[in-house]
């Protein structure tokens, strides 16, 4: 083949209405999305009282849509042909009836717990790209964040049903569908996020990690200690080797500013690094370790302080930077999985958190590519089941991921209900 489907596909413009219409008509996995959000086969309030918000031509934003069935939803998507759409909470009433409801009667009630991590928050630490750009290398930050956050949400908070979704350009979303997560109040969400939030402070603030109860040598909370264990290797691989965060003048000046204010150590390091500008980030990190070693016996307090500060540096460069506001309120709208990013044309596909490191944003299915695949696929052979259109494209494994995920949630929800039923049947 002269040109690959990939190359052909890139020629499709995701901002063209025809392209999007073909995508919504032939590829969007409505059924799986419905089951995932509704957590049952028959539409319940999680579906019928759920807000959807559409962005259509000229950036017109239509809020408070809600639908009786998955089919109604599909019809509306095809009619509006939105460039993207977002998912909100289940309200106390159907959002689309809001004009006929008394004031204050439309209250957000249940909603997946969501997280949003965006590359822009890493601009001060990444060296390979900036702004809207993202490459396989800086994806390493996101991958590290996924590892830590996934771990904390499962082991610390005990959640099971996490769906990680590529946001289409330079970030990732996480949706948690456990009943406990869906039922969280805003206060509880705020508490959880505050627990997880470690990097705080504005541009002006150099040291952004202050998690030792105001003491320099305080202990880390066990959950943060777990995170630190995960992040140590990430730090050497990503920060010291790949990103070379302390190579440039500005880089190592920041590093010095993040260490305890000890004239002797700081000045020696400064002199050393000024005189040999080609010392790598890894060299410099080793320099610090070597420099403070003598204090281990002569000044254990100072030594301990350095140790803790260096741990904090690891956290500052690699700990997940979450957009806290997104997670704190039930009524926050978040872009739906399987939307197409209007700028990049990439589909917001689910990501397996255990393989987040292997993920390559450049390799994510492009809407055009999928349409080409569909055109090139052999017509369904007679006999046997007629495959869905998506099954004939590289979207298939991702749709299946969402289906499996929805199934697991539904099994759990059913399981939680069953005992009650059985009891009543027995008597």
């Amino acid at each position, binding site marked *: 083949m002269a040109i690959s489907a990939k190359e052909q596909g890139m020629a499709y413009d995701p901002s063209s209405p025809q392209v999007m219409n073909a995508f919504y008509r032939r590829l969007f996995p409505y059924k799986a999305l419905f089951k995932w959000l509704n957590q049952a086969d028959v539409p319940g309030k999680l579906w019928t009282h759920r807000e959807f918000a559409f962005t259509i031509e000229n950036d017109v934003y239509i809020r408070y849509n809600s639908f009786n069935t998955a089919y109604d939803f599909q019809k509306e998507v095809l009619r509006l042909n939105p460039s993207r759409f977002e998912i909100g909470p289940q309200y106390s009433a159907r959002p689309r009836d809001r004009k006929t409801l008394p004031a*204050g009667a439309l*209250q957000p009630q249940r909603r997946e717990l969501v997280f949003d991590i965006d590359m822009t928050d890493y601009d001060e630490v990444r060296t390979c790209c900036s702004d809207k750009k993202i490459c396989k290398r800086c994806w390493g930050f996101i991958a590290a964040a996924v590892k830590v956050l996934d771990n904390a949400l499962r*082991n*610390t*908070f*005990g*959640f099971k049903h996490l769906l990680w979704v590529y946001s289409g350009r330079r970030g990732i979303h996480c949706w948690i569908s456990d009943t*406990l997560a869906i039922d*969280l109040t805003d*206060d*509880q969400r*705020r*508490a*959880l996020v*505050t*627990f997880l939030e470690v990097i705080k402070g504005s541009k002006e603030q150099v040291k952004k990690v202050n*998690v030792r*109860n105001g*003491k320099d040598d*305080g*202990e*880390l*909370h*066990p*959950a*943060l*200690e777990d995170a630190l264990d995960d992040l140590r290797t990430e730090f050497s691989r990503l920060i010291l080797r790949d990103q070379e965060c302390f190579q440039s003048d500005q880089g190592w000046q920041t590093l010095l500013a993040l260490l305890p204010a000890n004239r002797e150590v700081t000045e020696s390091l400064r002199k050393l690094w000024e005189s040999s500008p080609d010392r790598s980030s890894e060299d410099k990190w080793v320099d610090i370790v070597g420099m403070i070693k003598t204090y281990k016996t002569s000044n254990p307090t100072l030594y301990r302080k350095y140790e803790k500060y260096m741990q904090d540096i690891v956290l500052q460069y690699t700990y997940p930077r979450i957009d806290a506001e997104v997670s704190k309120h039930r009524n926050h709208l978040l872009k739906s999985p399987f939307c197409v990013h209007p700028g990049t044309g990439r589909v917001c596909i689910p990501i397996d958190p255990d393989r987040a490191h292997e993920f390559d944003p450049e390799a994510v299915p492009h809407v055009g590519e999928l349409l080409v695949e569909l055109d090139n696929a052999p017509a369904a052979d007679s006999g046997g089941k007629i495959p869905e259109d998506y099954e004939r494209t590289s979207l298939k494994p991702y749709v299946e991921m969402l289906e499996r995920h929805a199934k697991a949630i539904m099994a759990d929800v059913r399981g939680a209900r069953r005992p009650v039923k059985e009891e009543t049947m027995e008597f």
Partner: protein
Amino acid sequence: MFRPTTRPSATASSSLDVKLHKRQTVSSASSSGRYPYRLNFYDRPPSLDITLDEFETCAIDRLRILSHLEALSHRNLPPAQLSTAIATYTKQHLPLSANTARTANLDDERRRDEIGHWVLRLAFSRSPELRARFVRAETMLFRHRFETDDASERAAFLRHLALDWAVVGEDERSAYESQLRKCMPWARPEQFAAESWFKVSWTAVPDLVAKRRVFVKQGMAYVPQSMQISLVLQAFDTRLTRALEVTAKNLPRLDEDERLGPVIDHLAASFLAGVGAGEYAPTDSTAAVTAEMVDDVARKHFPPCMLNLYERLKRDHHLKHFGRLQLGLFLKGIGLPLEEAVVFWRRMYGSTMTDDKFNKEYRYNIRHSYGQEGRRANYPPKSCTQILTSNQPGTQDSHGCPFRHFSPENLQSFLLSTYPQLERGSPDMRDIMDSVKSSHYHVACTRVFEITHNVKRGEGLGNSESVSHPNKWTDRSRELEKEKLAILNGEDVKME
């Protein structure tokens, strides 16, 4: 007779049954055994035989406390100062004594406490906002009582609640020893050794989770006994929130006794306006003011709403009806006698009006507001609640409360041009605008008072009282001036 009607199944635990009597029934002096504890989770509605008067006063007393607590909570006081402020205020308006107190009529105090709570539930179940604010304030009150309660009484109370918290066993404790230790860095070794833990869903202690004060594993938080207050408060909060939602869905029909409806409406409205039905009684220190003095008093002692009206009047030589009423009654309150008021208004209108017109149309109104015409009612000066909630100003009006009725931009420039102590973008200014944004107008007003009178933050009009009446602002402002003069003159100042 008034009987809230709700679905029978829901009544049992959630609604209040009130029988109104003409006269107060003498409650038996001996302890009824209904109130073995000072603390109360209010999970059993009382069945009450009370007078309308009792119904109302219990509710108003409590409302006053809740408003005051809410105002205090927005002032970011240090814990100790906050606790004292609450203690002083509650002692005065809603005392609640421990079992050991010999002098107090425990049953009566506790009964009033309970009635107030349940009546306010009716008033506050109506909107999500009211519910949320009620729960916050009630929880704050409960917290204060819990913290100041006698240790053994508190323990007995907790036992009776029988909250189902799982106790962490020895095995688990030693398995997580190091993690538990790291979550209590402040504890001395012997303290840690003596500690025991409850295991609860982390959602039961969001405050401890947010501060990383507890070890969390698989969704369970390990809460040290020493932090159980968080658990108790959360339980209080959750139960009350749920109960209010039930009440909201089965709101008792109040129209069966037309006397109760208005009382309850008024309670909710007062709280929304941020003030506990404050009524104004002039203090004796109010020296008479003459028409000549008004200008001077205005510059030094008028609250923002009145200063605004007065400046308008000076500029336009005119005020619309409600503006005249608001300012006029206020002036009466600060001690401007009728004859002086006539002089004052005549002068203000100046040449824009003929004597004839003034005498015909305005003199009557002034005399009327002093109770000298018509029904001869002596109208009291308007409270902040009234100013905030009734007769909403139209575009041509200048009455009302600047904090509520000005746009944020206009309010800011008004404050900046009126009070040289305030600066654009200063933390104080931001504070004030934040309070306004969250509809705590009286908090904003109190802050302006503090700043312009060189009063410590949190002191308000003295004893942490918020501004609830324009005349109280002026009284206090004049009082402070007197004290200052006395000091300058080397006199002794009588301190309360």
